[in-house]
């Protein structure tokens, strides 16, 4: 599972800090959206103080329920949505800061694959032109960009002479998603954000695309941020996993550790919600009941306490923090039970 952790030394001409320097550091990233009709000054806390580190050459999986802010986070990282506050550091350079890296330069090195494979391709553009569009916008001539597009189509397993001239509606879902991957890769990125990139595909096609993504990562030296709500898929592809709940990070750790010994009750509940193929292990009651609370008016203290079996007074009074993490083996959880000094009756047990 963790083959990529021991992968070959990372090499890229654009690399600045070496393999030890994280690809992306996210610090206290925040974005609130104003909402109409929910009272004066009401905001949706879509992403509320998210911090994490993405190391070079790894795949970081991000999981969480619908509406927990995963997609907003992805768009914030590319400045497709401008963050309210917080800091992004890409390979040692602060994004959109004086003396840092510009958003345009960031977008040349970080690309994104969207969930809806149909909506993310222009229906009136042959797919070859869609793939060539990015390179063309970055100074390549049309024939140059076309050739680059054809090369990259080969890499995702689509014959350019057959598929290049086609329009999106002539392709299957899996093929369209491979075109989207090709479009992202045509820019020669070092990091790719995959926002639910396989969620809309059939299981068999999903497996194909996942394997393609793994192969591409090996050959092209990529770093992935893999967003999904499918825990099995995340476990399959990720080195480390980050769990989000209502715009905040609740747990972060290596995939193997997080899936075998989850520390946050929300993660435990998520893992327990997976359907079992084993008839003897079927569960009658869902581990999580009801919808998450409104991100407009989240609960005080710990945001998960309204659905948590172990909630106590301390959970309503103080918001638990993720704690300090040092490297790619750190496994931390934002829960009072994980903190021995929190005053929770089960403190230190998680």
């Amino acid at each position: 599972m963790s083959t990529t952790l021991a992968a070959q030394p990372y090499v890229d001409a654009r690399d600045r800090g070496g393999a030890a320097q994280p690809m992306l550091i996210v610090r206290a990233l925040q974005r609130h959206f104003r909402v109409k009709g929910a009272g004066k000054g009401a905001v949706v806390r879509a992403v509320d103080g998210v911090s994490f580190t993405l190391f070079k050459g790894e795949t970081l999986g991000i999981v969480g329920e619908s509406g927990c802010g995963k997609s907003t986070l992805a768009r914030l990282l590319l400045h497709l949505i401008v963050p309210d506050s917080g800091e992004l550091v890409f390979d040692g350079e602060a994004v959109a800061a004086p003396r840092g890296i510009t958003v345009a330069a960031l977008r040349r090195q970080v690309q994104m694959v969207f969930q809806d494979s149909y909506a993310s391709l222009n229906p009136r553009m042959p797919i070859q032109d869609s793939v060539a569009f990015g390179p063309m916008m970055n100074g390549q001539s049309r024939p140059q960009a076309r050739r680059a597009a054809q090369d990259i189509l080969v890499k995702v397993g689509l014959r350019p002479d057959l598929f290049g001239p086609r329009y999106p509606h002539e392709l299957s879902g899996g093929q369209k998603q491979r075109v989207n991957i090709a479009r992202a890769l045509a820019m020669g990125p070092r990091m790719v954000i995959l926002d639910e990139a396989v969620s809309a595909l059939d299981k068999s096609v999903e497996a194909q695309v996942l394997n393609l993504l793994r192969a591409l990562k090996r050959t092209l030296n990529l770093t992935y941020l893999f967003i999904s709500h499918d825990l099995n898929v995340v476990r399959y592809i990720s080195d480390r996993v980050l769990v989000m709940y209502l715009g905040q990070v609740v747990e972060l750790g290596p995939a193997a550790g997080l899936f075998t010994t989850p520390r946050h009750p929300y993660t435990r509940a998520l893992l327990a919600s997976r359907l079992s193929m084993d008839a003897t292990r079927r569960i009658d009651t869902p581990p999580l009941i009801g919808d998450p609370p409104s991100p407009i008016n989240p609960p005080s203290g710990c945001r998960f306490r309204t659905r948590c079996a172990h909630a106590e007074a301390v959970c309503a009074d103080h918001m638990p923090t993720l704690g300090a993490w040092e490297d790619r083996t750190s496994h931390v959880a934002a829960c009072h039970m994980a903190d021995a000094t929190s005053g929770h009756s089960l403190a230190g047990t998680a």
Partner: protein
Amino acid sequence: MSKTATLTDTPLPTDSEFEGAPATPVRGYWQSVLVRLSRDWVTLAFGVVVLFIICCAIFAPLIAPFDPYSQSIIGRLKPFGWRNHPWGTDELGRDLMSRLIYGGRISLVMGLAPVLVATIVGGTLGVVGGFAGKIANTAIMRTMDVFYAFPSILLAVAISGAMGGGITNGIISLSLVFIPAMCRVAETATAQIKNLDYIEAARASGAGTLAIVRHHVLGNVLGPVFIYASSLVSVSILLASGLSFLGLGVQPPEPDWGLMLSTLRQSIYVDPLGCAMPGIAIFITSICFNLVSDGVRAAMDVRE
């Protein structure tokens, strides 16, 4: 998890189903539109009719059998074929066929020019309003809503009345009548695609707003704008005739289909067939424009 891990060994998809299939040439979007159009015989046939009407208007002096202005006090409202007048004469004894051929000149200009101006101005405003963000959108669309407060014919009459008669002022007033609706059509189409992922992907690949509009927005907005514009051509011809009837558009004795329709209308019991001729001309022209534009719109849809 060990089960899914073995998936790694399955080969990458190769799409062998298409092995040996002939390669199709890469065509740009507009090239492919032309190819689809060239296969659409119905549209091509009606296109020929439209071309014929336009040629008749352009070469009117060569084709018209008589002088469209020469009157005859004894030859008024004569039937078809009277003294070599193939379609008879009008209420002042002028050759009807010649007047219809000459009338095409003004009617086509009155039908096409306002629509063209409205498409360019209204379409641009609509795309800007749909794409540029909230403030620009509100400014543009609320201004357009002001024009919606008036019935279109009333608005055209008011503007023409304020500026005076004549063909140029008629074109200007009709353009102003059509711009708000055209703007709305373009704005709706733009707003629909504005938030789609491919626009966001284009932005993520470093494209500027102008490049995104040029490559990704215009092609998708042109379809609905085009079909709406074509439906306006016949409306424009009729509105222009309405203005002429009120003495605000084309002035007599200039031949214009709309004007002829309104002056011949008094003779409908004496010469019903001659009376119907300008109407038939408007009908054929507008239906041909509609069918051709429908064909072009179909050709612009990649799924056809």
